[in-house]
């Protein structure tokens, strides 16, 4: 008993036990695989029973979508290059780029008291504790434990989760808290006269340095204005489809090397390649 109490204290206060966790996690990996089997079997049956026409139709639709997205991306690349030039003119100290890796959810259920999911990427793939996780629509959450092959992701809606954000419309900074129930988030500590409206989109603000700025987090769904309360009662809904998505993206923030003046010169030359990998060149501040 005292061993378990000791373990809890150590685990709560430090990261020292992650090796132990990884080792045991490796041992129970077969159990995970087996418990995910029924769900996988279901998915396989679903896929196998789908008709050729359906697949064909979906393929055509996705192709169309991809063309649209690609054309948008072209514009985005041009904008990004322009943005980089302007940033340099303004002597912004640095800009951070991101790299992503596709990960899939493993169909096992974790602790019922917390809102967590398991993904099939671990330390071996470069995942780390505190890493942001997104899906095509917005932020999902962050990795809280990374073991060798799998990591647990704490969702935005977990009770212990909070994420710094801002209103996309006017830049008002807020903190978005999870409530422990699906599809509801709380945005507390907003003054009665704060400029926030129903339907406002909240995006990550990048404060705290954990989440890169600009990713959608939540949509405001309800604002309760009670004059007896010191703050507004604001409720939101996650933009990402937390409970339905299967494919998620792990995000790495790539901080460009500050002490590399050669990076500055050939900006226009290989702009394409750079934009593609989204490795941002560091801003001016080069003093010469």
């Amino acid at each position, binding site marked *: 008993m005292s061993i378990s109490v000791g373990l809890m204290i150590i685990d709560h206060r430090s990261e020292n036990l992650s090796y132990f966790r990884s080792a045991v996690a490796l041992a*129970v990996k077969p*159990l995970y695989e087996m418990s995910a089997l029924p769900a996988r079997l279901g998915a396989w049956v679903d896929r196998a029973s789908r008709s050729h026409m359906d697949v064909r139709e979906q393929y055509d639709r996705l192709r169309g979508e991809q063309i649209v997205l690609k054309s948008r991306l072209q514009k985005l690349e041009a904008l990004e290059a322009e943005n980089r030039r302007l940033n340099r003119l303004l002597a912004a100290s640095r800009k951070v780029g991101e790299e992503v890796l596709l990960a899939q959810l493993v169909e096992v259920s974790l602790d019922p008291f917390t809102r967590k999911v398991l993904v099939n990427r671990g330390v071996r793939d470069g995942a780390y504790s505190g890493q942001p996780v997104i899906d095509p629509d917005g932020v999902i959450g962050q990795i809280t434990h990374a073991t060798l092959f799998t990591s647990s992701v704490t969702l935005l809606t977990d009770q212990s989760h909070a994420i710094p954000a801002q209103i996309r419309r006017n830049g008002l900074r807020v903190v978005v808290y999870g409530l422990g129930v699906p599809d509801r988030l709380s945005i507390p500590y907003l003054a009665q006269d704060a400029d926030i409206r129903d339907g406002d989109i909240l995006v990550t603000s990048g404060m705290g340095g954990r989440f890169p700025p600009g990713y959608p987090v939540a949509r405001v769904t309800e604002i309760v204005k009670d004059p007896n309360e010191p703050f507004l009662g604001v409720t939101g809904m996650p933009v990402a489809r937390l409970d339905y998505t299967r494919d998620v993206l792990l995000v790495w923030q790539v901080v460009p090397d500050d002490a590399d003046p050669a990076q500055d010169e050939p900006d226009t030359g290989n702009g394409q390649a750079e934009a593609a990998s989204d490795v941002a060149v560091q801003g001016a501040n080069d003093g010469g």
Partner: protein
Amino acid sequence: MQISADTTGPRVRGWIIPISFGAALLLMAMPLPTWAVPYRPDWVGIVLIYWCIAVPHRVGAGVGWSVGIVMDVMQFTLLGQNALSKTVLGFLANQSHLRIRMYPMWQQCTAVFLLLSIDIGLVTWVHGVAGNIKVGWSAWWPAASSMLIWPWLFIILRDARRRSYIC
């Protein structure tokens, strides 16, 4: 009859206990529809209780601790949280094994409910101390569903135990 029993006996003899715990862990991690998740029985807890009262000299607080640690790792909870509660569960079940064995089935179910309530109480207590997670009364649903599962589990495990000659 006797010969066949002797040949199959030793092979499964010691294995039925780890196999049953493995199956319990599997059932614990098995995905369920969202509405059913709060009612999932505490499979590991009831299997532990069964072995603690059936073979108290083999399974007790120590086994409880080991299984609890595996649970902690599998569920990514605070390391030691389930280990603590399962240690206490194993200890209490061991202590009262003579009494629980004598109970009629409905009374056994009540005892299981009580033991698991203590287990859940410890888990929620650790949740409260460690993080600011508030857990409502719904946390006690697993104790109720485990209580309903208990008679069937008891029969299955008893047969399995008799077949593998563990006593």
